[in-house]
């Protein structure tokens, strides 16, 4: 338990008058549209549970309206949850007093927003220092700290610009620096890059990967872009109409979609880029050769393909010292060729 940075149990958020009368009744099991018709309430998050490990990048995905934004806002009670339990760093968030909650937001959890949410009347440095100012830090101190993070996100030289003088990508770097500046243990991202054009978006994704390797924060990252999810996520949670559909590593989700909704999602994915050997191996048959090269189970098919195809013998898949199974040329080709057929 204690090695989770964040755990969520049976979380509900229902919008509307008398929302608290819905959870625990038969109405709660109704599909969204029927619930809306019967009670006028919208179930934005329905009975969601998951854990996020320390240092993990945890991605939440789903179509528009599936409740991602609501879910991530419930974590620090920017939106008050209707029912359920949230534990951050071992502390129960839902029972926190207002003051304690503010402490949590000031020191432990910071958020980056889709539309940046910068203060247009303040310069970059004052925007980045904003969280520190809220904490009550003196001007000189917070400016010095802000300068560090402006440097970290590569905005040095723009300290005294105003947000509307920056490009969208640069503005989001300010948003990123503002969140980083409070040195939180958990960072929340609500579709931070979907307002940016594709090239800038790729830059910013790489930026997040770099920052994650440098500062090693726990991150909860909302997106509706699957390639972004696969690129950044250690694990992915998929939501539909407020409900959790599947949680797993990218390879797991691609290899074993829980239902048609997820299968549809991942149908366009280049499987060889995502699937690891663990998901294509099989148990050795009596007449299989066991002299092929040894590879780790979490190697991606694409990286293994050349060596596997070159070798006469099927690849032996190991997890550490343990032998798990074998991958023959057919298995490799099925992944690679199926994909080319699809493309």
């Amino acid at each position, binding site marked *: 338990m204690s090695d989770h940075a964040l755990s969520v149990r049976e979380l509900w958020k229902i919008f509307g008058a008398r929302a608290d009368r819905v959870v625990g009744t038969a109405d709660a099991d109704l599909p969204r549209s029927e619930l809306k018709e019967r009670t006028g309430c919208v179930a934005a998050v329905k009975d969601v549970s998951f854990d996020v490990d320390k240092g993990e990048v945890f991605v939440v995905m789903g179509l528009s309206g599936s409740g991602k934004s609501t879910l991530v806002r419930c974590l*620090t009670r*920017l939106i008050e949850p209707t029912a359920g339990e949230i534990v951050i760093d071992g502390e129960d968030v839902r029972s926190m007093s207002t003051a304690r909650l503010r402490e949590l*937001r000031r020191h432990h959890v910071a958020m980056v927003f889709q539309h940046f*949410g910068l203060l*247009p009347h303040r310069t970059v440095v004052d925007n980045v220092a*904003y*969280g520190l100012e*809220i904490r009550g830090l003196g001007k000189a101190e917070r400016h010095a700290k802000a300068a560090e993070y402006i440097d970290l996100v590569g905005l040095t030289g723009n300290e005294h610009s105003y947000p509307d003088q920056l490009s969208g990508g640069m503005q989001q770097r300010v948003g990123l620096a*503002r969140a980083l500046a409070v040195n939180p243990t958990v960072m929340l991202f609500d579709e931070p890059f979907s307002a940016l054009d594709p090239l800038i978006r790729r830059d910013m994704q790489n930026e997040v990967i770099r920052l994650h390797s440098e500062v090693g924060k726990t991150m909860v990252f909302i997106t509706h872009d699957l390639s972004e999810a696969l690129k950044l996520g250690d694990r992915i949670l998929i939501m539909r109409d407020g409900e959790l559909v599947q949680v797993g590593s990218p390879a797991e989700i691609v290899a074993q979609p829980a239902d048609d909704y997820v299968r549809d999602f991942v149908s366009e994915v280049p499987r060889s880029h995502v699937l690891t050997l663990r998901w294509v191996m099989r148990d050795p048959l009596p007449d299989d050769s066991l002299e092929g090269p040894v590879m780790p189970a979490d190697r991606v098919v694409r990286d293994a393909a050349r060596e596997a195809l070159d070798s006469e013998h099927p690849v032996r898949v190991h997890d550490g010292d343990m032998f798990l199974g074998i991958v023959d040329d057919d298995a490799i080709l099925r992944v690679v060729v199926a994909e080319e057929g699809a493309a």
Partner: protein
Amino acid sequence: MTTTASPPTRTVSPPPAQQRRGLGLRSFGRRGALAVVVVAWLGLWTALRGRATLEIGGAELTGFHEWLDRQRDSLAAQRDTNWLLQYGVGGISDGLNATVDFLRELISEPAFPRPFPEIGYLGVIGVFCLIAYAVAGLRSMLLVLVSLLAFGALGYWELSLDLLIVTLVAVTICVLIGLPLAIVMARSRKVDAVVTPALDLLQTLPSFAYLAPLALFFGIGPAAAVVTTALYAFPPVVRVAAHGIRHVAPTTVEASRSLGSTPWQQLRTVQLPMAKRTIVVGVNQTTMAALSMATIAALINGPGLGQPVAQALQSLDVGAAVVASLGIVIMAVMLDRVTTAASVRGELATRRGDSARLRRTALAVGVVSAGYLVYLSRTFSWAADVPESPDLGTPIADATSDASDWFIDTFRDSTQALKDGFSYGLLNPLQSVLADSPWFVSATALLAIAGIIAGRRAVVSTAICELVILGTGLWNEAMNTLTTTLVAAAFTMLIAIVVGVWMGRGRLVDTVVRPLLDTLQTLPPFVYLVPFVALFAASRFTAIVAAVAFAAPVAIKLVADGIRGVSPTTVEAARSAGSSSWQTITKVQLPMARGSVVLAANQGLLYVFSMVVIGGLVGGGGLGYLVVLGFRQAELFGKGLAAGIAITALAVMLDRIARYAVTRTGRT
């Protein structure tokens, strides 16, 4: 209006055509019902005219009027014994009087034992220019300088400053109370739901309705003037500020919350700075409203430029009225430009990082120079006194007096013919129908008309308002006022549609005319009376023309915006099918801009009404005249107060009918 009933042109694309066919049918039904009501009314009028009209003589008082008089007397008697009156109303009154007196002795009146105010002529110029520079920049400073010099040259230095004092004290009160209220409103739906209707009501009432009730509690003088002005000017700043705060980008507020800010921190660092510009727009609107009320408050002895205008209107001294209202116009333009510049300025000033130092230097120089001018004005009488020359006031007064006399003399016959034609051809017959029918006939007919054009809710409001008017004992006078209002509103709409269509169809016309209309809209209503008195002397006709002039700018702008808003593709389609301009206007643009036209009628009606009431000062008669008389003759106070109540009821009635009519057309 016949256009809506005519079959739609084939040229128009289907959706609007269908829409108009629906409208046409429905409005035909309504029109038929209206015709029935009017015919029935006319029939009853012919049969019963002159009976049960509830007309009362000029000096005649009803029991209610006497009761109001007694209330005034008993309030006066209790002033020293009743706790609430003594410390509540009395305290406020004393505080405001003291504030105004203090400021007057500071800048406009001799501060005993000195022969001059604490700060004399040059000092005042220095200080005001400095303030203008600090809040609004160099151009505003020059405008303030020129305006102040003009006040002196017109011969109204003290009264101009007095008007400024009353206006600014009222605005300060509005902002001090209004801003916190706006903040609370923006945060709480409940407070908003309570305050908004109250503000609506305040904004519906014409300025004259405020005078009598406040005089009842505060007597007459500076305190009453400030309170009236503040009440009248209060709604815009609250509304606009609440709107601004409420509409600050929600993501930014959320970002601030996500970093653990307290509500107070959110307000201070996000909402107020981001809404600042909108808030200043609200202050601008409040300032202009305050200026217009502060001039009218001259009728309850409010100090300032309204006084000479009121006196001159009473004695029909056109020259003096023109000079004093010129001062008011200059003041209006000055306050409008300075507050507008201030709203733009804030951000720009902080943005230009490098020129900040320059500005600081300039400010420092300004402070020193203003200080020096103040010192001069306290030390030397030449610096404290308003210079004798140039004297623009006397020549302007003489010239306009002469011109007015000449015009009235030369065109006596034609203006008289115009007025007579207007009176006998239009005004008197209509007035006869409204006021000479038995009261129950008019009342029922009005209810029916309200129901037909505005629906059931309007009938309820109309009934309540009619009961109130009957209760005041001034039914007949109210019908006279209503007649004048309806006639003026009809002319206003005629002008609004003609000019509005012209503006809406031509960009060039729009760019030329619009700034003029904007300026006209900032002028206090008092000022509108003056030129028409100069042309037509005092009469009902004068009041109507002034009302039309006052209401036309708003209505024209609304119509023009509506015409402009008609989809250009539709207009193009009509033209490509060979419609003439006239056909395009009457069959496409006007019907499609119907919503705006109805809105223009709504606003025009309310503006006309408030001006018609003020027209009581220049021979307009009716309820407004009774309000004025109430302040002039002590024994008519109760009647004047009753007239104020009747005005309120009539205003609410017109507003409700107009408003429900708008929502109705909005839905079709």
